[in-house]
């Protein structure tokens, strides 16, 4: 038992490395859904962020000293820009949010590799020499970044009037509109924030867990983040817990060969765990509806 605890403790830095991007993307997903827009495009937006970050870093690594922060910034901008497509389609045009999100996911699959083909003449970016270095306590700075983002999100959502308005936009947009607030503007900002955060999350993944961007860099982590939002019941503390659980489970899948007690199990069991847990909790807590009430519905001024 002690051995296992020790192994888990030693795994903590790599667990945090995996948790950070899930938590950042899930925070964005939570903000977006609390404002009433479902964003299943997280996966694609993370992919775009990862590609943008890797490209920036590869091209500038040797010529400037701050290519990593710049890579994060470009990833955030690209994520936000692509999220605008989702915002325009699902808010202004009142299109089905799931269709528009699916469109972005498909588009991201093509666009990321397309640009790699143009820039590097292959279907991935070139390797870079050194990604983000680990810092205090062996953990990557991305873990701290994730924590800061989560706390900022909590503070804005629950301690600022704007956060109250954002939550109202996802619960009862018509009531909010009758109080003279521009629901459409709030939803736009929320979707763009989720795109920015997804872009940053993608940059975290590629710059800590990889040495280049490939089409499988994200490989379902956007959908894990989406699961973390549901499992965390759309609450900041909830998604902190669920992201941690899912991250630990992914870390176990990678490290399973080092743990004698679990060695005989297929590692896929741990990869599968987040999805099973989310499905089971959705069933168990199905009686009470934790999801924002207007989430997934286009905002229609005429409806009451």
């Amino acid at each position: 038992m002690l051995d296992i605890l020790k192994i888990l403790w030693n795994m903590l830095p790599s667990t945090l490395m995996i948790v950070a991007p899930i938590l950042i993307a899930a925070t964005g997903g939570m903000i977006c859904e609390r404002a009433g827009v479902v964003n299943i495009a997280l996966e694609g937006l993370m992919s775009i962020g990862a590609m943008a970050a890797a490209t920036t870093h590869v091209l500038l690594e040797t010529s400037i000293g701050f290519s990593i922060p710049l890579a994060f910034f470009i990833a955030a901008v690209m994520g936000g820009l692509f999220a605008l497509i989702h915002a325009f389609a699902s808010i202004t045009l009142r299109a089905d949010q799931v269709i528009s999100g699916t469109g972005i996911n498909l588009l991201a699959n093509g666009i990321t590799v397309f640009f790699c083909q143009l820039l590097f003449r292959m279907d991935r970016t070139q390797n870079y020499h050194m990604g983000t270095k680990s810092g205090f306590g062996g953990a990557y700075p991305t873990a701290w970044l994730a924590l800061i983002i989560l706390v900022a999100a909590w503070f804005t959502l629950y301690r600022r009037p704007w956060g109250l308005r954002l939550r109202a936009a996802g619960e009862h947009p018509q009531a909010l509109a009758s109080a003279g607030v521009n629901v459409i503007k709030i939803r736009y900002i929320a979707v763009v924030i989720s795109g920015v955060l997804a872009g940053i999350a993608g940059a975290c993944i590629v710059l800590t867990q990889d040495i280049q961007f490939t089409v499988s860099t994200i490989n379902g982590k956007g959908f894990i983040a989406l699961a973390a939002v549901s499992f965390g019941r759309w609450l900041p503390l909830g998604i902190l817990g669920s992201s941690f659980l899912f991250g630990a489970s992914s870390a176990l899948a990678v490290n399973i060969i080092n743990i004698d007690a679990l060695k005989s199990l297929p590692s896929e069991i741990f990869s599968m765990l987040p999805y099973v847990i989310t499905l089971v909790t959705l069933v168990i807590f199905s009686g009470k509806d934790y999801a924002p009430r207007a989430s997934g519905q286009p905002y229609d001024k005429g409806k009451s």
Partner: protein
Amino acid sequence: MPKLKDRILEVFTGSDGLVSVAVVILGFLVGTILILLVGRNPAGMYSAILQVVSGWDLRRGTQNMRYIGEWIVASMPLILCGLSMGFAARTGLFNIGAEGQYVAGLTAAQFVALYFPQVPGLHWLMAILAAIIAGAVWGGIVGFLKARFSVSEVVATIMMNYIAQYGSRILTMRIPGTNTFQTPPLPVTSRLSSPFLEAVTNNSRLNYGLFLTIAAVLFYWIIMGRTRLGYSLRATGLNKEAARYGGISVNTSITTAMAIAGAFAGLAGAIVSLGSFSAGRVLSVQDGYGFDGIAVALVGNSSAWGTALSGLLFGMLKSAQPLMQSRQIPKEITSIIMGLVVVFISLRAGVRIIIEWQMKEKARKAQNAATAGASEGGHHA
């Protein structure tokens, strides 16, 4: 005489088929511009597409039927996954889970292929049946959870996709003689390969899956449009409350629809595995047919024949990829066109909004004119 702009708007709201044609043309247009922007010749894309659908290689002046065969092979799983998505959509459900149902079908088919007695004729039939059942169960679970516990089918199907993917690996890796990417060879009696179809198409991988796909399209058409079941499913999709009032069991409809949807995707899994591959597959990433199926169904308007056509369209793009690459066109342009087409489908809602706004403007102007006229009249009196 209505203005041209009004006519275009009318077309957009009037006919589903024309909208699909318009968004596809728009997708190709943007794709073409993108190719031009990066300094390549778009003719390469179109000549690759021509070669896929007709076999004609313009550069060499030769004709090879194999391309046509491969085009149809690539289209079959897309059509079936499109039917899966469409069947659920007609019942008002969003099935993102065709991928997982496809994997469930593929896995079941492979197990029957490897372990069922090798009886000619019966073997492949049992493998196909197992795949259909596995897909139906995989989809049906989500339908049941939606009907009984009102769990969102969007989230549930995404979760089921990954459970299927990893579950399939766990199970398949236990088969003796399996390495990380394939199982031992599948027995000939379980395979769908057809010497005749291969011969007509110059040794393409075209197989009996063709007839199964045609049968599935016919089945969809008959069930949706010609039966009582189809009627109650469509009624549930159009208006749940009205359907309930009309005596239709909405919960049963939801579970049935998801199960049938899953059956289509499960069949796709079997056809890919037993038709195109000589050994069972250990999946490490998703094949993507499920997500492509969403695009297929959206462009096909979830109708049987529309989905078949749009499946052929996307299959054409898919099988043109290697040819494009050889003509210096990045093959990802096809995924970009697919993604754009889905995003453009949102335009449809946008056009409705423009029309509503125009009508309101017209009404406002008419009212303004009327009040102006009335006040003028009052003045004279």
